C-alpha cells in the first residue's frame, strides 16, 4: 500500500505538487491521471524517493520513505518514463543485474528469472541483447526488471506510451494479474481509454492538486458525464 500525505514540491519557485494526498491500496489498480504538466511524474518520483519532498510524507507498506529510503525501495518496483535498457546486455542479464542489486540469492533469482520470462512471454528474447528491441519488448523488459524481486507495490509512469495495440493489451493483462495477486499497482496516464479499461480507482490531478478521486463510474456520475474522458475534461477545466 502506498500512502501519499500532503506532498509538496516546487522547482525554481513553481509549485509543481501542492498538498497532494491520496492512497493506493493493495489488490487494486490506481490511476493517477491529469493533463500534461499536472505533476504526475513528479508525484511518482516523490513516491519512489528520487526527488526529495519539500513537505509531506510518503509511506510504502507503512515504511516512511524519508526515514528508511532503502527499506521503502525494497518494497517498490517502478517503471520509469524512459524505460532505460542497456543495449549491450541481454534480457536475462538485465534481470540478473537488477535481481542481484535487489539482494536476491542466486538460486532464488534463477527461478524468478524463468518465471518472469514465461509471464512476460520473453523466452525468445531471453538471450538477445536489448539493442534493436521493439518498444513493446523494451517496455516488457523494463517492467520485468522492475519487479524482479516480486515487490508488493508497483509504480508505472505512463506505461502505455508508444505501445501498439497488442503490447498494450499484453500490458493490461499483466497489470490485472498483479492486482489479482493482491499487489498495489499505481500508474500515471493521460490516456483515458487505458485508465477506464484497467483502473479500479482514479485520482485526478490538476496543477499539482487532487481535484477528484473515485472509481471511473463514480467520477462519471459525480460530473454527470457519459465517459471518463468527458468527466476528466470537466474536472480538470
Amino acid at each position: 500500500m502506498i500512502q501519499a500525505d500532503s506532498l509538496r514540491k516546487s522547482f525554481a519557485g513553481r509549485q509543481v505538487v501542492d498538498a497532494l494526498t491520496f492512497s493506493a491500496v493493495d489488490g487494486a489498480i490506481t490511476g493517477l491521471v491529469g493533463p500534461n504538466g499536472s505533476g504526475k511524474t513528479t508525484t511518482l518520483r516523490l513516491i519512489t524517493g528520487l526527488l526529495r519532498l519539500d513537505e509531506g510524507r510518503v509511506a510504502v507498506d507503512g515504511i516512511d520513505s524519508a526515514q528508511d529510503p532503502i527499506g521503502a525501495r525494497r518494497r517498490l518496483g517502478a517503471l520509469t518514463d524512459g524505460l532505460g535498457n542497456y543495449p549491450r546486455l541481454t534480457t536475462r542479464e538485465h534481470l540478473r543485474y537488477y535481481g542481484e542489486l535487489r539482494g536476491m540469492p542466486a538460486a532464488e533469482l534463477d527461478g524468478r528469472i524463468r518465471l518472469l520470462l514465461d509471464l512476460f512471454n520473453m523466452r525468445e528474447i531471453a538471450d538477445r541483447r536489448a539493442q534493436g528491441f521493439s518498444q513493446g519488448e523494451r517496455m516488457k523488459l523494463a517492467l520485468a526488471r522492475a519487479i524482479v524481486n516480486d515487490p508488493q507495490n508497483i509504480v508505472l509512469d505512463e506505461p502505455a506510451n508508444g505501445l501498439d495495440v497488442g503490447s498494450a493489451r499484453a500490458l493490461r493483462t499483466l497489470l490485472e494479474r498483479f492486482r489479482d495477486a493482491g499487489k498495489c499497482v499505481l500508474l500515471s496516464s493521460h490516456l483515458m481509454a487505458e485508465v477506464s479499461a484497467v483502473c479500479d480507482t482514479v485520482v485526478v490531478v490538476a496543477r499539482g492538486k487532487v481535484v477528484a478521486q473515485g472509481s471511473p463510474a463514480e467520477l462519471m456520475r459525480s460530473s454527470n458525464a457519459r465517459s471518463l474522458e468527458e468527466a476528466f475534461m470537466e474536472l480538470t477545466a
Partner: protein
Amino acid sequence: MKTPPWLVVFRKEVLDGLRDHRSLFSAMMFCWLGPLLVGLLWRQPTALALLPAFLMVTAFTGAMNIANDSMAGERERGSLEPLLMNPVPLSDLVFGKWLAICAFSLSGVLLTLLVALAVLYATPLNRSIHASALLWMLAVALPLVPLAAGVDLLICTFARTPKEGNSYLGVLLLAPMLTGMLAEFFPVRLQAAIAAVPLLGQQRMLSALTRGESPHVAWLALSGACAVLLGAGALAATTRLLRSEKVVFGR
C-alpha cells in the same frame, strides 16, 4: 550468498565495457601508438623521453569511454533513474562503477608497458634502460589509475550527455599530455614538493627511469598517496553530485 552491490555493479560495467568493441579499439590505439613511436625514433637520444607522457595519457584514455558510458550514457538512455531506485546505497553504485573504470584504466597502462617491453627488445633501446625499469614505471603509474578513474567519472557525472562528456574529457587529456611534454622541456628538479603534485610527480619519476636512474622509493610513495587521495576526493564528489536532483534529472 548475497553479492555486495558494488561488486554487482562492477561486474556489469566490466561486461558492458568489454562488449563495446569500438570504444575498446579506440582506447587501445593510444596504448600501442606511443611505444611504437618511441621504437621508430630509437636513433634519437631523447626517444625514450616520450614514454612518460604516453603512459600517463593511457591511464586516462583507458578510463574515458567506460566512464562516459557508465554515467553520462546511463543518464542519456534513461537507465540512471531506474538504477537509482534500487535499494542500494548510492556510494555502492558509484564505487562499483569507479572500480570498473579503474580496471579499464589499468589495462591501458599494462598494455602500454607490454608494447614498450616488446619495443625495447626489438630495438637497441634496451641498451639505454633495463626491462626492470618498466616494472618501476608500473609502480609509478599505478596510482594514476584511481586518479584518472575518479576524475573521469566526476566529469562524466557533471556532463549531461556523452557528447558533452567527450568534449570535457578531451580537454582533461591535455593535463597528462602537456605535463608529460612540458616537463621534458622545462625539467623541474624532483623533490618532495614536486613529487606530491599529481601527474608532475609521476612525470619526473618516469622521466628519471627512462634515463636509467634508480627510483626514489619515499617520493614514489608520496606521489602515489597524493594521486590516490585526489582520486578518492573525486569519487566522493561524484557521490555528492549524484545526490543533486538537478544532476540526475538534467538542468
